[in-house]
């Protein structure tokens, strides 16, 4: 049986349309409160722990399986098209070909797919805790202690009531006058069993120790815990791949710019501009 259809750009077009429609369906599914809660759980757990939340939401499960299937097909199609149609330009060393950047663009897109897949299966998921000064928690083989909180903004705005709400509201909704991320920081000591490393983390400025990224996601004073001072919500993420992931994205962007330049130069020479 001939498998030429797997190499075709027509299949790529059909798959791109289908994946787009699938994401549109995903948007509709995520509008339902029950599904939204399941998606939130998927965000917090690695793939190995997804079975339980997905069992309660078959629509999300079907959507997810469909998405993975379509992405695998699209990945295969991209790889095969690159090998058959784009690799020969490089093999024949046709450096002046207008299609020269097509191979890096497609290969880097595949790598980005791959990193998303690895992230999904092995890495997605993290440990989080709300700590006050002196408290610690563990994440993997790391012991993380909050040694100091340097909060410069008005603390009355982050005092939570019995429902957990504060006058300043969610951190993403706060104005820079209420909360300036550049002024407020938390000091941590991280112990990996061999060495202790200390450093500061701010909101949107992580403290990194090897593959551990400490992210401060909120400052608050929980209800009736004023005496313990400002609490810090901290997220510990172990992601050894993140730099490679962003390097691939950066190279993809660069390849696209080069492709744009190649096309512009060619059309300029041809006089179509």
């Amino acid at each position, binding site marked *: 049986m001939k498998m030429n259809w797997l190499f075709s750009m027509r299949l790529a077009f059909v798959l791109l349309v289908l994946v787009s429609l699938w994401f549109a369906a995903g948007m509709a599914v995520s509008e339902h409160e029950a599904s939204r809660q399941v998606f939130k759980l998927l965000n917090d757990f690695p793939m190995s722990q997804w079975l339980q939340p997905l069992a309660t939401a078959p629509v999300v499960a079907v959507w997810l399986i469909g998405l993975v299937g379509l992405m695998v097909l699209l990945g295969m199609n991209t790889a095969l098209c690159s090998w058959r149609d784009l690799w020969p330009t490089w093999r024949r060393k046709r450096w002046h070909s207008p299609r020269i950047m097509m191979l890096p663009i497609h290969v880097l897109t595949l790598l980005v797919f791959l990193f998303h897949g690895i992230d999904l299966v092995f890495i997605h998921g993290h440990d989080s805790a709300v700590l006050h000064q002196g408290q610690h928690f563990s994440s993997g083989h790391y012991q993380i202690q909050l040694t100091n909180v340097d909060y410069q903004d008005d603390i009355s705005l982050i005092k939570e009531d019995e429902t957990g709400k504060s006058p300043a509201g969610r951190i993403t909704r706060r104005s820079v006058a209420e909360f300036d991320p550049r002024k407020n920081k938390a000091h941590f000591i991280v112990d990996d069993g061999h060495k202790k490393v200390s450093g500061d983390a701010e909101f949107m400025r992580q403290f990194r120790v090897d593959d551990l990224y400490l992210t401060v996601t909120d400052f608050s004073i929980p209800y009736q815990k004023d005496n313990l001072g400002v609490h810090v919500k901290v997220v510990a993420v172990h992601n050894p791949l993140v730099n490679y992931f962003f390097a691939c994205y950066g190279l993809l962007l660069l390849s696209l710019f080069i492709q744009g330049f190649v*096309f512009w130069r060619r059309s300029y020479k041809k006089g179509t501009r």
Partner: protein
Amino acid sequence: MSETSLRSIATTSKTRLSVRLANVALLGLAIFILTLINANSLLFPASSEIVYLVATALICMLSVIFLSLQNRAQINYVFILCALAIAMLMYSQMLTQPKDSGAMLTSIWAQLFFLSRPLALGLAIAACLGYLIQALRSEANLESHSHLLSLFAGTAYLGGEIAGSYWAFIGWGRSWSWSGHFFLSALTYLLFILVFHIPKAWFSNVSALCMGKAVVLGFISLLMLGYRLI
């Protein structure tokens, strides 16, 4: 050369000059409005609807500033784009000015993420219109211009996605999440990719292919505008 043809050339030159002047004036106006908005804020309010529209109009004007106007169809193209930019600038003035500067905007990655959207949208609108005119007037010679604009629109969108991913990673510890916002981002980027994967064999001629690309880019533009403004 007859007097009629000389008069026709003179009229075309005048129209070309007036369209170019309108193009430059609107570009200047958009920059001026952005400067005024920025002067009233602690941080540049890249996430606001007003900046979204003004920056989109600015990019529409910037996308044709270096296009040498060789024929009537190209003059009409710039003219229609100017009209769209005026409409966006006028609508933006009906929106309320951003009062507070969000804490999130202290991150350069957040600013880049928000600014990438109008950048991509402005280029997509200009590319869509270019393909549309090319489809209707085959002598317009706008195909390569529109191709380049759609390539840069997709690249700008991807750049914004990368900046947004990095912002999400440093802010929440994850570069993406299972949520409607991320699904829409993926959907829009896939549609940008789709523009370059429309099989030529499915269309009877180049005009039909250009119309196909214009339809996809038009859909992307409406999607981006609708999601942000409605």
